[in-house]
Structure formats: C-alpha cells, structure tokens
C-alpha cells in the first residue's frame, strides 16, 4: 500500500511527515499543467499548499531527478520566462499513467483513513 515505499532519507522534516510517494504525486500533479523547471514546481507546490506542507525544496529536486531516471519525466534545457537557461521537466506517457494510478490510490487511502477516524 501507499506508505510502503517510504525511504527514510527522503522524508522531509516538517509538520506533516511527507512520504516519498506523496512528494512524487505532488510533483507529477504540478507537471500535469505543462512543462516546468524545478523552481517553478517548487513555487507551484508552495502556492497550492499555502506552505502547509513545508516541503524542503531539495527533496523536490531529488524527486524530479529520480522520476526522470524512471522515465516518468523527460527533461530538456530551455529558456525561462526571464530568458535564462533552465532545465524543464515534462510528464511522459508513463508519468501520466503513474499520476492517474497514484491519484486513485491516494484517494482510496485517504477515504479509508477518514472512515476509520469517523467511526471513532
């Protein structure tokens, strides 16, 4: 199940312990809107979560590179909005599939936990 692929060194120290799968899910979701560079992903995640998750940006980059290696993302160098060289990430077909699967799994997981909490 979901927390099973926790890797100790990838867990950010924050208010909410963020497991690696969750981080991957956030990054995939960020890139679902279109290609983005690492800073863009960090900004999107920060803005969307209103900094509730307190994610270390270093962990985000680790997630990006790891998923690039797994073939979920492809990366290319391009020019940023202020005309600087930046590395842009884009979801591959495999990445899209992964996003759908992870989303479904996350939803089930949360629903299950919520049910438990409500019965208590």
């Amino acid at each position, binding site marked *: 199940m979901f927390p099973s692929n926790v890797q100790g060194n990838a867990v950010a120290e924050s208010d909410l312990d963020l497991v690696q799968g969750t981080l991957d899910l956030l990054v995939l979701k960020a890139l679902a809107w279109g*290609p983005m560079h690492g*800073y863009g992903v960090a900004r999107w995640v920060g803005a969307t979560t209103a900094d509730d998750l307190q994610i270390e940006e270093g962990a985000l*980059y680790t997630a990006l*590179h790891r998923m*690039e290696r797994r073939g979920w993302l492809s990366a*290319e160098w391009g020019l940023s909005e202020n005309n*600087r060289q930046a590395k842009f990430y884009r979801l591959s077909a495999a990445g899209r599939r992964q996003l759908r699967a992870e989303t479904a799994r996350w939803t089930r997981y949360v629903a299950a936990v919520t049910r438990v909490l409500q019965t208590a």
Partner: protein
Amino acid sequence: MPGRDGFRRLFRLDRGDRDVDRSVRDELAFHFEMAVADLVASGMTAADARLEAERRFGDVGRTRHRLETIDRARVAEGRRVEQWRNILHDLRFALRMLRRQPGFAAAVILTLALGIGANTTIFGIVDRLLFRPPALLPNPDHVHRLYFARTDNGREFAAANVSYQRYLDVVNGTSAFASMAAFWTPRMAVGRDNANEMRVTMATASFWQVFDVTPVAGRLFTAVEDSPPAGEPVAVLSWPFWQATFGGRRDVLGTRVRIGRVDYTIIGVAPRGFWGLEQTAPAAFIPLSSGADNFHGPFGPGRPSWRQGYGFNWLQIFARRKEGVSIDASTSDLTAAFKRSYALQAAEQHHLPPADVARPRAIVGSILTERGPNQGTNSKVALWLIGVSAIVLIIACANVGNLLLARAVRRRREIAVRLALGISRTRLFSQLLVESTLLAALGAAGGLALARWGAGLLGSVLLPDLTTPGSVIDSRLLLFTSLAAAAAGFVTGLAPALQAVRLDVTTMLHGGARDGASHRSPVQLGLLVMQGALSTLLLVGAGLFMRSLHNVRDVRLGFDADRLSFVAPVMRGVVLSAAETSRLHERLTGAARVIPGVDGASRTESVPFYWDNEDNIFIPGRDSVNKLGSFVQQSVSPGYFATAGTRILHGRGITDEDRPGAPRAVVVSRMMAATLWPAQEAIGKCVKVSADTMPCNHVVGIAEDIKQFSLRDDPGLEYYLAAAQADATFGVYVRTSARGGASAETIRRALQREMPGVSYVTVTPLSQILEPVTLPWQLGATMFTMFGGLALLVAAVGLYSVLAYGVAQRSREIGVRVALGARPRDVVTLVLREGLGISLGAIALGVVTALLAGRWLAPLLFSVSPRDPVTYGTVALVLLLVTVIACLAPAQRAARTDPNIALRAE
C-alpha cells in the same frame, strides 16, 4: 510564453559524468537565482533572501550529490540501452546483408565452420587428456596419483603400479593424506552364457571416500565387504553397463551377475558419467579383495597370495591430501614411507640394489596420468594436433578476412554514402565487426555440428581409448567454441572495418567503386601469401608423416604381423594342471592347423608388444650374462618359424625331433648369438635357463632378430625353446593365408569347441596388437593430410575468389589491352603471373618455416629427415598445380573479355 510547450528548446545533451555535474550545478544555480530574486522583490535584503532561500532548500551539498548520483546512473543506463539497441540494429542489418548474398555467406560460414570445427574437436580431446578432472571428484587439486620412482642404471623410472604390500606400507606409513585408495581395471569376462570381456575396476573401499559418489540406485560397497583375504562378491554397476545390459531396471539390485568366475550380487549403480579414473566407463566396480583372487586364480601352495610380497606390481594408488598440507610436505611424508617400505622389500628380495643406488623417491603427481611423470604419446600427439588445428583456423580466418576485404572494397561507395550522411565512424566500425561476428557465430554453430561428427570419426579411428559417444559437446566445449568464434569474428572483421573507417569520403563519392578497387591491398596479398605458406607447412608435415608411416610399415619386424593371430585361452575358473594345460595347448594347435584358410599353427609363450616372459640365463664359463640385457623366452611347437614368418639364418628351427627326452634344443636370435659369443660359432653352445643348475639347452639354430618392444631400437635378444621340452606356453599362434584378421571369428568358433566348461578363447590378430605401436605415425599422417588438404582447399578457394574478383574489377583495363592488340594468351599469362607470383612467395615462406619447425618434428618422424627434399619438392609441385587450377577459370574469363562491352560499360 513562446511556443506550444512554453519554452524554446536548447540543444543540450547530458552524455558524460562531467556533463551531468555541470547540468546539476546550472540547475541549482538557476533555482537560487530565481528564489533570491523573488524574495528580494517581496522586500528582503539580498543577504536575508540568500539565507531564506537556502533554508527553504535544505542541505544543498547533500542534495547536489544525490542528484549527481541519480543522473549518472540514468545516463549510464541510457548508454547501455542505446548500445544494445545499436547491436540489435547492426545484427538485423547484417542479417539483411547476408540474405542478399547467400553464396558469399555460405562460403564464409562453411570456411569458419571447418576451422572452428577442427579446433573444437581437438580441444575436446585435449581437454579430457590434460585439463578436465575426473567426474565427481571434489576439490581435484587435492587428489593425486602416487608414483614411486627409483633409479636404475642412472635412469629414474617412476612406477605408477605397485604391489598390495606397498600400498599397505604407504597407507599405514603416511599422515599427510586424508584418504588413499588402490585400484586396478583389468578385462574380465562378464556375464554367464554370452560372456564378454569387459573392463572391471576392482578397488579398495576407500575408493569411495576420495570421490563424492551418490549411487543412482542401491548403495556402494563398504570396508567390511572389502576385507582381505576374500571380501564379499558384491558389485556396483556403471551407468552405461546398467543401461546396456539391464535396460536401466531397478529390480536388478540383489540379482547376480557373473564376473570372472564368481557370481556377484548387484548392490548399486554408479551415477551417469562416473568412470572412476578410467577414460571410459568400466562395466562394474567390485571390492579389491573379492576381485583379486577371482582374477589371479588360486595361488597354490608355495605361491604367495596377492597380498604378500613386493614382486607383483598391479595396483594404482591415488590419494587426497589433507587440508593445509602442501604438495611438498605430502611428498616428503610419502617418500619417507616409501623408503621404509623399500627397506622391507630389500630384506625380502636380495638382488634389489641398495637404497643409496636406487634412491627411492615418491611423486605426488596430478590425478591426470597425462600430466604425471609418465606422459604418454597420446598427449604429445594431441598437443601437435592443437597446433595443426590452430593453423587451420588461422587459414580459415585469413580467407574469410580476405573475402570480407574484397566485399568491403565493393561496398566502399555504400560506406562512403553512409559516412557522408553522418553515421559516426565508431558506429560503422562496430557495425562491420558485428557483421563478421555474426558470420563467426553461424560458423561456430556449423563447427559444433562438424565437431560432433568429427570427434566420433577422429576418436573411433585414431584415439579409440578416448572416445565416448554422446558426451562430445558440453559446457566447456561450448565455451571454447564461443571464444574461438568471438576471436575469429574479431580477427576477420578487423582489417575490413579499419579499412572502411579510414575511407576518404570525398574521393570515394567522386571516383566510384571501379577505380577504387583496382589496386589490390597489401593486406589482401599478405593474407593470401600467409594462407599459402601455412598450407605448405601443413602439407610438408603431412608428407613427412606419410613417409614415416611408410617406413614404419616397411620395418622388418621378424614376424608376419599381417597373417598372424594370437589365440589366448581364458580359463574362467576351470582349473587345469600343468600337464592338462600343455595338452590343451597341443589340442588347440592341432585343431587350428586343420581349419580351412590356416597355413600353420604353433604354441607360443611371448607375443611382441603384448606379453613377454623373461628369465635369467646362464652360460657355462661366463659371469653375469644377465647384465647384458633382458632375454625374451619363447617356447614353441615344431614349425613355429614358418608359422611366425621368422627366418632361420643358420642351423635349424625347432622340429619334431626335439621331443621330451631328446637332447634339449634352443634357437637363439642373431643379436643374442653375437652378444653372447662374439666372433664364435654359436651352434652347439650351451644355454641354461632360470638357474645354473638347470640342464644345458644346445643351440641348434640362429634366427633373425624380431622387434619385441620397439620398432626403432629393439634389443633383439630372444631364445626359442621346444614347447615339448620346456612347458611354458601361454597360447597359440595361427597363421592365416588371408591378410589381416578376416578369419578371426572362424578361428574362434573352431577352437572354442576344444575348450572345457565355461572357459573360452580370444583371437587377436597381431596387426591389432601392433596398431597402438604405429598409431603416432598413423595419427600424424592422417591428421596432417586431413588438415593440410583442408588448408590447401581453403587457400585455393581464397586465391580463386580474389583473382576472379580482380579480373572482374579490371575488365576495363583488360578490355583496353585487348583493344590494343593483346591476344588471349597474353591475357591468360597476365592472370597466371599474378597467381603464381603469390603462390611462389607462399611456397618460399612456407618452406623456410617448415625447415625451421622441422627441428621439433624430427623426434616424431621415423627414418625420414625433417628436410627430406622429396617431400618438399612434391609439396611445392602440388601447390603450383593447385594455383594453376585456381587461376584457370579467372584467366579464361579474362581472355574472353570483349573490349566493346568492357569499354562501353563505363
């Protein structure tokens, strides 16, 4: 944001580790630049913004390191995937190319198959002889055959065979060995009604401790069942015998099989492939103590048992060293035990030289006989075969290399186009190598098929004691073949690939294939010359061995090996007195004489190269005659010399008058007469046998020397007693009017009627006994001729294809010549001159090499100089003849060149 993707692409690829590191650095630098800029924009000071950005990021150094690690792995994986994809692509491409030229592909594959097949065959044999440890022998480096050496007349002899007493002495007298076993594998009659002589290993129970054998059925025999004097009659069958005789049925356990003259209870079956230390599977394994009496017969009163004394050397010993005991330490331990044992032996045998003369010493040798101190001819021959087959492979590679070169020349335009289109030279290079490796792999598959067939052929014809059907191809052989194929692929592909890569694109695209090909490359010429030279070398070897074999066959043996057969009675437990044995041998001789097709028969005692009886002789008035050499004793019937084909030089042979009671007669060999009575008349002299006190045998005749032990330098010391006067015969000689052993079965059937009870006779043509003696030359002649012929064929095809190709390429030049008035004869001469030039160069080089190599070949030849001019001349002629034949077709085609067509083609 410009563009559909929101950014403009930059051409940037991360290929190496340095690129990866730079890319990570740039990416992080961009991140911090943006973060600081945003924070400053929201009102922070630059310094605070920097600190805040780093806080948000976490440990920068560690993250950077982690990103670099991930990216390096990704790049490496990508490279690997790309390489495989390239190889697959190259393979598909190569296959397509080959399908388009099936003739070319077939020629290359067949050539390589011959080369690789020859090597695989030879490797299989050599591996068995010299490298592969026996099956089911764990940690074979710690298992040794034990040899016991002593010095005699300044020469050291290492004996692998020892007496049982010696075995006991070293078992009890050493501490360096974890286990030690003795065994012997004689031929024994196996079965009851249709008895066959088969090899049976009789071994001490400790045999099973050295090996790690789990029987496929039943159990192995134990120390209790192998306790002297008699042991238990229990047998462990070998897997092949179990399959062949009992169809692999498990219910044979507990039933009986007759071995020798005893019924053995079958208690187990050894696993498949377990042969003990034999080269082929024996029929069964039985306890030594039950087999010894069974085989040797009852040791009557006054005769020692097989367990006593040092005189009877029949056992081989092998042992497993204890862990942590070095070979040196175990050798000194064993030598000490051997010295004590030798002292005991000297106390028993008074004629034994003292220890400081004999210098007894033990050798802890390899478990493989051929790597021990007594290396046989088989492994020497096999090593030669390795050399010869390697040469064949080299020639095959040279030939294929040449074909590939010729094709590369034809493909220059194609390659130039592809280079111009941007294929990298590295890719092109690897593509051409993949192509040749594919060819080599297909060749190897063909080679394996050939080896399977060839090993059977080679083995059964030339090394009969080494072949086992069905076990020819295994993983070691496959590994060897793959290595040979990979090497062949690389070697053959290298030259064409290098040449292609060095190609100058612009010249090629401008010039076209025609002009580019008109120069024969020096590599190609060199390869042709090398092939021819190596063929010359092999053919010279073939010639020298054929002449040796011829000389060997011409050696005057002193007996007619082609017409003689040796009949040996096998008593199988039927016990006869000496007088009864004598009468049986007389009966057999008489019965043999009346068989149709038999010209004569005689009782016999010693058989050359097989079995001989030597006894001490005494000459009145002379001392220490026996120091002059070993005298071989033969006792014969009247008519023996006509039967054997041995000439009487003076006096008479043994006749009917040499009856019991008549004066005792002896015929001596010429050499023996010359040795004992130099410059004296030998006839009438007295020879006493065994002891000084025995009666005189008077010399009545002198016979020619016969070859008893060696074709080359036999001592030639033989004496012949009348069987009627000195009863010691062992069997019967039968002379047939037909050559060879054609009527051996007739003889066997006729004589079998004379045999009492379950005893039987074996009939062995002497030519069969002599076969192993002439084998090295036979092997040499056959192998060199086979491989030399193969090499010549391959080289001739190579020369033909290169010349034919050259003629095709030069058709325009030839056309011009013809147009300018050259006659067909001139054109033919043009082509012939080129071919003969190559061939003369090759012959010169080959002859020089052969002359240099002759030094090593000389000891293997028989009465032929390694510089035999007839051989060299013949080989040169054969090569020139083959060259002319190879040139003929291309020359004719050139002569038929029509200048109009050739010139218009441009």
